[in-house]
């Protein structure tokens, strides 16, 4: 049942120009940044040779590329998540799903899965950009994998938060604004503090993503992302179930 909902989500997503436009624009921006980094690398190359143990292409081109991708996804996610539940409500199609013999959990997980498949497409495009470097250089695959894992986990966080925001309203634009606001706050929650041990640091999405970006896979970061995603998925399910009772 989850797969049927996910399939339906992808079908309706790709039937609209939104998905294609987003993919194209994101790729354009990322390719531009990729080229910029490549240029920097080529300029620096002569100096790099003189350092012992110099950073490679993966550190100089791929890691910053992934860091930017996370920001681009942060901005794009609200556009994708706002329709998930809010638009179903507005078009009176939520009744269609609720009347079917499936649970709210199926609906929420199906929608989440559909979105994650879309994100996987986007991530694979970024990976393709990075892999293209293989034609003229070596890649640090460990660092690349750590970046992919980090991007995937942070995309899951964005998706679950956006999905929850979409559950709260029948207006897609409010869902989008809410998701963007909440994500930006979480992204930069540590900006007010310089103290490294501050609790705000632990709540910042960016801080946890930075570790993956540098090639450090820490269980604390993984736990944070997984718990974050689960929390908002459970909240979404509870919210929709509660609606049946409150009316």
């Amino acid at each position: 049942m989850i797969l049927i909902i996910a399939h339906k989500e992808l079908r309706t997503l790709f039937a609209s120009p939104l998905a294609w436009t987003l993919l194209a624009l994101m790729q354009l921006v990322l390719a531009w940044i990729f080229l910029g980094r490549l240029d920097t690398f080529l300029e620096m190359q002569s100096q790099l040779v003189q350092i012992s143990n110099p950073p490679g292409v993966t550190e100089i081109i791929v890691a910053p590329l992934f860091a930017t991708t996370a920001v681009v996804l942060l901005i794009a996610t609200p556009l994708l998540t706002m329709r998930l539940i809010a638009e179903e409500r507005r078009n009176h199609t939520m009744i269609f799903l609720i009347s079917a013999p499936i649970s709210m959990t199926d609906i929420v997980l199906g929608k989440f899965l559909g979105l994650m498949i879309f994100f996987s497409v986007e991530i694979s495009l970024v990976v393709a950009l990075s892999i293209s470097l293989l034609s003229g250089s070596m890649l640090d695959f460990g660092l690349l994998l750590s970046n992919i894992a980090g991007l995937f986990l942070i995309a899951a966080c964005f998706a679950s938060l956006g999905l929850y925001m979409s559950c709260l309203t029948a207006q897609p634009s409010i869902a989008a604004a809410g998701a963007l606001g909440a994500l930006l706050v979480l992204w930069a929650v540590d900006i007010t503090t310089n103290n490294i041990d501050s609790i705000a640091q632990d709540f910042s999405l960016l801080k946890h993503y930075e570790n993956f970006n540098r090639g450090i896979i820490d269980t604390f970061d993984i736990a944070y992302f997984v718990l974050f995603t689960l929390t908002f998925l459970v909240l979404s399910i509870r919210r929709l179930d509660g609606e049946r009772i409150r009316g």
Partner: protein
Amino acid sequence: MTEKDSILTISAHSLRRDFGTYTAVREINLELKRGEVLGFLGPNGAGKTTTMRMLTGNLAPSSGSVEICGIDLLDKPRNAKIHIGYLPETPPLYQELTVNEYLRLAAKLHRVSSIKIYSALDEVKLHCGLKDTGKHLIGSLSKGYKQRVGIAQAIIHDPDVIILDEPTIGLDPNQMREILSLIRELGTKHSVILSTHILPEVESVCDRVQIIHQGKTVFNDTLFGLKQKGISLEEMFAQLTLNNETLVNL
């Protein structure tokens, strides 16, 4: 399971629904046998749609119980909902899907096995006059056709109970006649609840009429019984719902 239960497809007892301090449905009992078409009537705001939302699991009742084919809707919603087909007031359509895609989705969600989907799809399109529109986008269809797609999604999984909320709205007279004969046909094998404001429609297809007013059942009898009393449905409706003073205790 007693014999009575196996004949009854819907049995709802003392349904009540409050929205804050406002009570939309006060006390409604509803029973429906297989092969029966029930006309569910009432003035605007009487609580028809609220009742139907409760019968289809879209809204939890404040108190009362609903059983669909002997399965408790509140305890085992997923098992009970397989037996229900529901067309809400506004047909729940995805404008960006084609008719075929949408109906296949409806069938899959109602657990129609993948072998049966194609025959079910053909059959339902034939029934609802959608033969040539399979590849059209739903968004490009006229209102009447959208309404037909809405009915098609409610019956594609061959449910025991079909609940239609004003299904003939926006149809031309020919389509209306077709849909009514479709409902009559469905009523021979299934149970149908038909909510509408068009009384001649009720007289032509329904076996029994239940009129609700201010969240309570004020009339519940067969059309045959009504005819024997020599009162027309319209008179009855007006008498029961127009002003409360003339309301007789039934």
